[in-house]
């Protein structure tokens, strides 16, 4: 029951965002140059930004892009972590050591600087959508090591379980054992990892965007919109500039509540 309320709120937010983007007469990139930093009006419910773009449409699009990108990146990073952890667990000890050493090296790298470096290597002409995809792919590629350590630990325990030895004695191949028995057993471990990654990636994208290295203009993103908060003149001009950060906090709190719930159940 507890899980259903935040879930319903999130679903409602996503539906509202999708409807706003779909139904609005304004494209997220359209500049209404006669309505710069407009207050809330019948045309622009949440006013407009500094170049006259509809704030409601942009916030809605940023929510959809952020959630979709972060969810996809979390799924990829969890899959990589599962693959890496399992590979190490079922390899000879020397190979497991090497694989975990590689994972530790990744873990010890300053990931924010790596993200910045990887993002800045993109060609200058990369389209806004390409920058969005690359940003989340880079997040996925750098987010797996901590998770893979946890998977490795869990898989090693399960590898030595009695039912595993029984399965091997019955002639099941390692691949079959992993697919049919081990992965379902690891689900309580992988699901929280996945759920933790989603808000973490949303925050990481916002950080990159605030540094000017996230999703390219004119595609809306949390990070680019949070940049407005750095300007006291804008803050004094309209209260609607707080909408992106308010929505971000709500989304993060909902996602955090999922994680907490799953951790308690696990």
């Amino acid at each position: 029951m507890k899980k259903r309320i935040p879930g319903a709120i999130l679903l409602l937010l996503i539906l509202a965002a999708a409807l706003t983007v779909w139904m609005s007469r304004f494209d997220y990139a359209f500049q209404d140059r006669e309505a710069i930093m407009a207050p809330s009006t019948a045309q622009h419910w949440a006013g407009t930004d500094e170049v006259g773009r509809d704030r409601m449409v942009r916030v809605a699009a940023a929510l959809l892009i952020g959630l979709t990108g972060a969810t996809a990146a979390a799924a990829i990073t969890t899959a990589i972590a599962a693959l890496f952890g399992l590979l190490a667990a079922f390899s000879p000890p020397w190979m497991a050591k090497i694989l975990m050493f590689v994972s530790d090296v990744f873990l010890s790298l300053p990931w924010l600087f790596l993200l910045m470096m990887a993002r800045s290597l993109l060609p200058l002409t990369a389209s806004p959508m390409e920058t969005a995809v690359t940003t989340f792919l880079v997040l996925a590629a750098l987010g797996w090591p901590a998770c893979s350590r946890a998977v490795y630990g869990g898989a090693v325990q399960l590898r030595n379980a009695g039912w595993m030895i029984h399965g091997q004695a019955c002639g099941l191949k390692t691949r079959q054992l992993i697919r049919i028995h081990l992965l379902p057993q690891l689900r309580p471990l992988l699901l929280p990892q996945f759920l933790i990654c989603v808000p973490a990636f949303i925050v990481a994208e916002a950080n990159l965007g605030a540094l000017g290295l996230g999703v390219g203009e004119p595609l809306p993103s949390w990070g680019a919109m949070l940049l407005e908060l750095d300007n006291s003149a804008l803050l004094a001009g309209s209260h609607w500039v707080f909408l992106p950060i308010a929505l971000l906090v709500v989304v993060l709190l909902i996602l955090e509540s999922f994680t907490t719930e799953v951790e308690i159940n696990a």
Partner: protein
Amino acid sequence: MHSQLRASFVFAGAMALTTIFALCQAAPRQPGELAWAIHYDPKTFDPAKVDDEASEMVRYLTGGVLLRINRQTQTLEPQLAESFHISLQGTSIDFKLRDGLRFSDGTALTSVDVAWSLRRVLAPATQSIVAAEFLSPTQVTVDTPDNLTVRVHLPKPVIGVGNIFDEIAIEPANRPSEGRVTSGPFIVTDYKRGQYVRLSRNPNYWRREASRDKLPYATGVRLDVLNNREQEIALFLRGEYDLIDGPSADHFAMLSQKSPHSTRDLGASLNTEQIWFNQSSAAALPEFERAWFLNRGFRVAVSEAIHRADLARIAYDGHATPAFGFISPANKVWHDNELTYPHESAADANRMLSASGFHRSGNQLYDSAGHPVKFSILTNAGNPSRQKMAALIQQDLAALGMQVTIVTLDFPALIERLMKKQDYEACLLGLSNAEPDPSSMMNMWLSSSPNHQWNPSEKTPATEWEAEIDRLMQLQASSPLQRDRKAAVDRVQQIVADQQPFIYLVYPNVLQAISPQLRGVQAAILSPGPVWNVESIRREEGAR
């Protein structure tokens, strides 16, 4: 990751607390002291080696000079020199010093000190950037016929030679002190790296007010090293700072609301904001793309498609003037009032592109070989007006079918791409013009110069019009007749308007915020802006 998320919130909270704490911090003001912010630490206090804005400010406030450019009338005024005379041939200048001049430590200032200071600036070992303005600095000689006379001999005439002496501070001979012993209004008394530079009044400053009051009025100046506009504005509004030179348009509007009597918009500055395409043969660009940028029709069409009035209104909140040439209308002597330039017209832009071999298919523009027209515009991070202009231009060019991506880079990364790697397609940046005389822009217009941005360091001019600009700029730099100089500069302005190597966007207005407690401030658009007559500025406690 979970802990990283929490850490992010903790970090954000800590940052907010730090910011609030920092906002409450400013070195305590001493009685009668003026205070404002400089954005970086001065690289040097040696007035002969100045090559950055912060050091230049310190030199201006501490260095006594023979001649000073009046920033309001833009004419030369004698300072340490009582009078000066330039020979008819322009190869000799005589300075007559004032009687009884003293350095801040009480020692006498004579022609020996002046000659020593000039020779030091001219010496190659000093590596002074001012020396290059004499064209052949090693051949310049300085004589001292008597204690009050200095004679400078030039190998050939230099246009506007008097202005150079505005940048040469006179120091005690053989005792360079890095601003501790000066002949200007203030001396350097304290410096804490990353925090502040404190200057105090020179007790032996030569100048007095008509009422015989000793100048400077202020007991000192505190220059806080602060590269945070938000903080600077908060401190100004709290009365901790006396002025802000060049607040952003957003902040200017806010300051106008909160402190209406403190803000001043002095109209168009001498500075320009422009966009240009990379035409360098050394650039790592595909040949077809370089061919677009070399195509005059392409550049003119881009210029015609840009709504400059929107740039001024939206990106600068109305505090900018649409620009069509490299000399601002604020530069009344050199601006060409008869200039003809491509006017804003989407229809003309489309016709120009068709005539240049481009064609539309749906919302996309293609060149004659079928390549879609896509390029990126680089600009620097941390300049909201430029980023807004880039977003507006992106939409203006989308109307022509051009796909533009905007890339913001921090300044060092941007300069690396522009100057070293030549790895960019188009760039949106501004140019600060400290001086109205076009001779100061030589390094930008000569095709052999590394600062000839669209095609740097050309061995020979790549086009006939660039060769003509070279010839005309050399002519204006060497012609003794103002009429000939003006004709040459007007022609350069017309060539640039026709060829659009730089597509000029706006002239940002000169914006200033001055505390109502300051008296004696005289508005000026030339650097150092409101403090150009710092010795006559005083702070009246209690006046608001």
